[in-house]
């Protein structure tokens, strides 16, 4: 039956010199090929990503100062972690970081999504505004810190200049007052990172199939209903990814605060990452800084897991 059904294959089989030995290696080579392709990437990942994380864990069990050989650094077991738990400074800066993250990310998400919805349609000048809005994203964080430090300068900054000349207000000590300094770094972060949310969301909105939106229009959905019941649910996975990236970034970034306020006044603008930097390079306690870095990794990991659990983009994608 099969002979008549597929004479070509049969004749091919007959031509083959029964290569039993050569079949096995061919199968092995075939199964190894994908691994060979990903090996360089895995090596880079292990070297560039996992090794530093492993070293952070490893160092956190030692009392090591820069300038001394690591071989002389005493192993201190859990002492760094116990000290960290008892250290009120760590909890203070963690609280500052969480507050900072809450305000910046909330406002950036709302503003970024709102701007994307406004500039989504091909209105006149949309491309001009899009370019303007993403400009802050192109500026290096160090330069952002310097620009805003001078803008917020109490004596000669533009902000105080206009507040005093236009509104007759007393000059405000923006970076020298704990509340105002916190406001200043939140404002600066929003200025720099709202465009990031905007650009991701607008890309998502523009990729939406127009049929769905048109169908909702035909069904009688108004503008608000289209946004909240059609568009935003459809780009939910993109919103979650943008949110995750911002959370990770808030815990990671320190350059702007380092330049603008140095974490002060007091610790009012000292984020966890800046605190780790100071512990490592100002007080030279690398082991202790590593222990706090482990806490940072755990906090970011925990928050990311919680969000993914709540709204996993992969899951959403498969549902769609």
């Amino acid at each position, binding site marked *: 039956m099969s002979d008549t059904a597929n004479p070509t294959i049969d004749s091919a089989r007959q031509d083959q010199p029964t290569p039993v030995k050569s079949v096995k290696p061919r199968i092995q080579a075939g199964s190894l090929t994908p691994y060979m392709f990903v090996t360089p990437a895995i090596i880079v990942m292990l070297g560039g990503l996992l090794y530093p994380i492993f070293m952070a864990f490893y160092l956190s069990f030692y009392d090591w100062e820069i300038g001394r050989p690591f071989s002389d650094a005493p192993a201190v077991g859990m002492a760094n972690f116990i000290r960290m738990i008892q250290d009120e400074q760590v909890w203070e800066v963690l609280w500052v970081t969480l507050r900072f993250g809450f305000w910046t990310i909330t406002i950036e998400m709302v503003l970024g999504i709102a701007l994307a919805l406004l500039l989504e349609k091909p209105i006149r000048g949309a491309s001009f505004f899009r370019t303007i809005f993403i400009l802050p994203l192109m500026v290096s964080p160090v330069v952002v810190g310097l620009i805003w430090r001078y803008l917020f300068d109490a004596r000669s900054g533009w902000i105080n200049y206009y507040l005093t000349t236009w509104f007759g207000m007393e000059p405000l000590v923006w970076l020298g007052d704990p509340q105002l300094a916190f406001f200043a770094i939140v404002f600066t972060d929003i200025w720099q990172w709202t465009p990031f949310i905007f650009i991701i969301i607008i890309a998502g909105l523009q990729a939406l199939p127009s049929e769905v939106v048109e169908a909702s229009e035909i069904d009688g959905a108004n503008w608000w209903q289209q946004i909240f019941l059609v568009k935003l649910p459809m780009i939910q996975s993109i919103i979650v990814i943008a949110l995750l990236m911002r959370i990770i970034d808030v815990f990671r970034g320190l350059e702007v605060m380092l330049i603008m306020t140095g974490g002060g006044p*007091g610790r009012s603008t000292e984020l966890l990452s800046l605190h780790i930097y100071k512990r490592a390079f100002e*007080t030279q306690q690398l082991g202790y800084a590593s222990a706090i870095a482990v806490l940072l990794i755990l906090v970011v990991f925990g928050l990311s897991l919680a969000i993914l659990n709540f709204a996993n983009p992969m899951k959403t994608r498969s549902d769609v």
Partner: protein
Amino acid sequence: MKLNLTSGIAALAALAFSIGVAWANPYKPYEGTTIVVSWPSNNHFKVAETLVEEFTEATGINVEIDYLQYLKLRDRQLLEMAQAEGEYDVVSWVVMWKGEYVNKGLLTPLSQMYTNAGLVDPDYDIDDIADAYLQNGGVVGGQLGYLPGKSGGLYGIPFGAETSILAYRKDILEEQGIEVPKTYDELIAAMTKLNEAGIPALTSRGATGHQVTAAWLFHLAPMGGRVFDKNWNPVVNSPEAVKAAEFLRHVVKTGPTGIPSYGFGDMTTAFLQGDAALYLDSLKIAALSRDETRSKVNGKVGYALHPTDARCGSETGGFAMGIPANSQNKEAAFLFIQWMTSKDADRRIVELGGDPIRISTLKENPMGFDEYPVVAEQLPCADPDWRPLIPEWNELNTDVLGQALTRVITTEDDVQAIMDEANDKIRAIMEREGYYAWQ
């Protein structure tokens, strides 16, 4: 044979000549050597670059300078000096790091060089270098660990060192009928009067951490206070220390807007732009005031001694230069340091716009600067012990005092309570570091 004898005599003569040349030129053995120098990128060290070129021309020793912003120097230097073979042959440190560097075994004791007669210039005259500068920047050991004593040793020579003086706007003080303050009481009165007239009085550092602590320490020493007593007990809650903190609060209330965010650059800019009538900090203000690209007050500034209270006592700070223990060119590095801090170089650096370290240069005053007579008078009572340069100082400075003093100047909280709390925190750190092991 005759030919051999002649050539032998010629060879001996050549050898003798070359030895003679070598003796006449102590730099000859190091000609062609390249040394790498780690310097801060501030005005003094930038203008010294011309002097470095002159050094290379005269000695044949090449110099590569690695400039870094001064607060970044320490990380880089520590990393380099911790290697088996470091890149640097000369490092310039902020005086407060010297204890840590020596404690970690990273510096070469200069006694190793001073016992090598071939290296030491007999005309160098180390006694001419201002004593407070030498003690503050170069000496480690002694009973306190950072000042001279029988157990102390020399590790560096000051270069780019400084003390504090009072700078004032002659025009404003004259206009307001205010005498130049000689004491802290007079200074407080002047500040109050200026404030009442709507003129920002004394500019000051105030940013959290090192800056605000430095501002407080400037006043602590003349007010008779210290950070520790002789047994390493913290005394930052003493009446003198609380008085200095209260004075700092008064400075913020009567001074230019924004002091709690001012670093050294911000506070000098306030004075240079005409936004403050008084300045009490590093003598570097004088050179900055003369620089019309940065200053609106050139010709309007007068200089006076750091006001006294319980005693006279100005700060001693800035930089010193030494040789890393892992340098591969220690002799050439020493010759470089000796050249750069010699009498001739000190005079030359003044011409170039830098700061002298020698009493003879200050007295000679080759450029006729207004502040030099004041500095020469100030230096004998400059206090090398105005802050404790112990390895733990960085943590106490930024983490404890830097935070407490920010509370002093940004809140209305009780100063005594703030300083009591800081005192307890300092004691806990000192205990952790083993300072009370013998008590």
